[in-house]
């Protein structure tokens, strides 16, 4: 507990200092509010209409989680399929890697043309950005399975399914979870971008509206919400990881 506190306070002080300097800077240099609002301006704006912000946050959160879950499922299914069918892996794995050089955002207008402005293209965008880290981390974890353990399982006559369930999957779990962590931050980004391009009722759409009326303070409020949402999601997955991999209390140290 004490060491945890020791780790947390230096960055915390840094953040507080940063906000103080920001506050002082805006008033000392008399910066226009539409260029850079002060932290107190942002705070005041956030407190002005919390109910409205809350609904928008929930809407984006819903989209994010739905997209993340679909992305994770797609990533896992692809990884497992490629793992079990080596021919498929050698044919498709390079293509999947290559596909990541396509900026997904570039596909957004196309998706709108194909699917309109409803939920589908948004979910596709999020899935596209989420599946990759999960698929790669899963495949990587599965292919790293300890050889002695694998030989043991094969020698005693374990079936492919048994080897997968009892050895490969649990062995790959830490790797899979690190992929999920990356995917979770990507999913928030994907959701915001999806809302920018289409209609919607979330934070992304709120940002676009404020942009056209130069309400920089409100854009900042939206940014704060997105940051907090990302951090919360990330924390949730770290906790899940701690719980799932409780057999190794200090992984880093050994």
């Amino acid at each position: 507990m004490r060491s945890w506190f020791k780790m947390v306070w230096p960055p915390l002080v840094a953040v507080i200092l940063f906000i103080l300097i920001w506050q002082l800077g805006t008033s000392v240099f008399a910066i226009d509010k539409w260029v850079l609002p002060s932290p107190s301006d942002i705070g005041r704006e956030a407190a002005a209409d919390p109910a409205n912000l809350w609904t928008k946050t929930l809407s984006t959160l819903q989209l994010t989680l739905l997209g993340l879950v679909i992305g994770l499922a797609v990533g896992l299914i692809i990884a497992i399929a490629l793992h079990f069918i080596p021919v498929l892996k050698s044919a498709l794995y390079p293509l999947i890697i290559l596909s990541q050089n396509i900026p997904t955002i570039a596909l957004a207008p196309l998706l709108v043309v194909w699917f309109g402005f409803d939920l589908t293209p948004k979910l596709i965008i999020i899935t596209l950005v989420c599946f990759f880290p999960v698929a790669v981390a899963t495949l990587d974890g599965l292919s790293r399975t300890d050889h002695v353990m694998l030989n043991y399982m094969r020698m005693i006559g374990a079936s492919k399914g048994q080897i997968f369930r009892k050895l490969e999957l649990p062995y790959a779990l830490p790797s899979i979870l690190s992929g999920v962590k990356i995917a979770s931050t990507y999913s928030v980004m994907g959701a915001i971008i999806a809302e920018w391009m289409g209609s919607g009722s979330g934070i992304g759409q709120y940002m676009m509206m404020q942009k056209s009326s130069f309400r920089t303070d409100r854009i900042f409020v939206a940014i704060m919400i997105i940051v907090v949402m990302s951090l919360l999601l990330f924390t949730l997955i770290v906790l899940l990881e701690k719980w799932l991999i409780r057999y190794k209390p200090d992984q880093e140290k050994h």
Partner: protein
Amino acid sequence: MDKTSAIPGTPVQAPALEVRGISKSFREKRRELPVLNDISLSVTPGEFVSIVGPSGSGKSTLFHLIGGLTEPDQGQILLQGRDITGQKGHISYVPQQPALFPWRTIEDNVILGMEVAGVPVKEARAEAREWLLRAGLGGFETVYPHKLSGGMQQRASFLRGLLSRQEVMCLDEPFSALDALTRSDMQHWLLNIWEENKRSVLFITHNIEEALLLSDTVYLFSSRPATVLHKFQIPFPRPRREEIAEDPAFLTLKRELTQYMREEQHKMLEGSR
């Protein structure tokens, strides 16, 4: 423990495990690398057989062949007279490193072999608990492997092999990663457990004294490509005690084997020059 020891009155006993004329080579950079050359050996039911041979002579490869991981170029593996060449699941195996699954508790690790064979988990657990007590691992049932010392992990790994339903156990240098004192403790522990249960065991080791202490029969392998140089019957009565290591007959036998091993090592060094 399902014992397949001789039913009284059976005239001729098929060996629990027989290796018949096994040869194997690997292809490495387009060059043939012969590893095993016409190896034959047998383990009768309830016999403890050791293989002693220089490093890299192909001992682990032989286990992989017996376990069905790879197929031999020539020869057969027979289990109670039945050809099982290239088939998996017929032997229980204790690898060189304990290779316990870190996400399983000690108890769950020990039942793995039974679990794979389809033994109901409840039954397997009950058996495992009893054996963990006997193996001095009582109180560690629900602990994860990383909390255990190397010797304790190796004991758990051995129990995992012992509780598996297959009759023949193959142990690949199970003590080589342990320090001398732990190693000697483990040898006596294994001796006791085995003398109580008399499973058919095929045991790989580098250590001649270890082989003499534990075995009924010792096969001496040459360096690569491995052939069987010699087969020694170890005459000491059972149950054996620690003091046997000071017996003059034991020392003579040890010297003889050491001499053979040394000559082999020399040949290997000259060969690599």
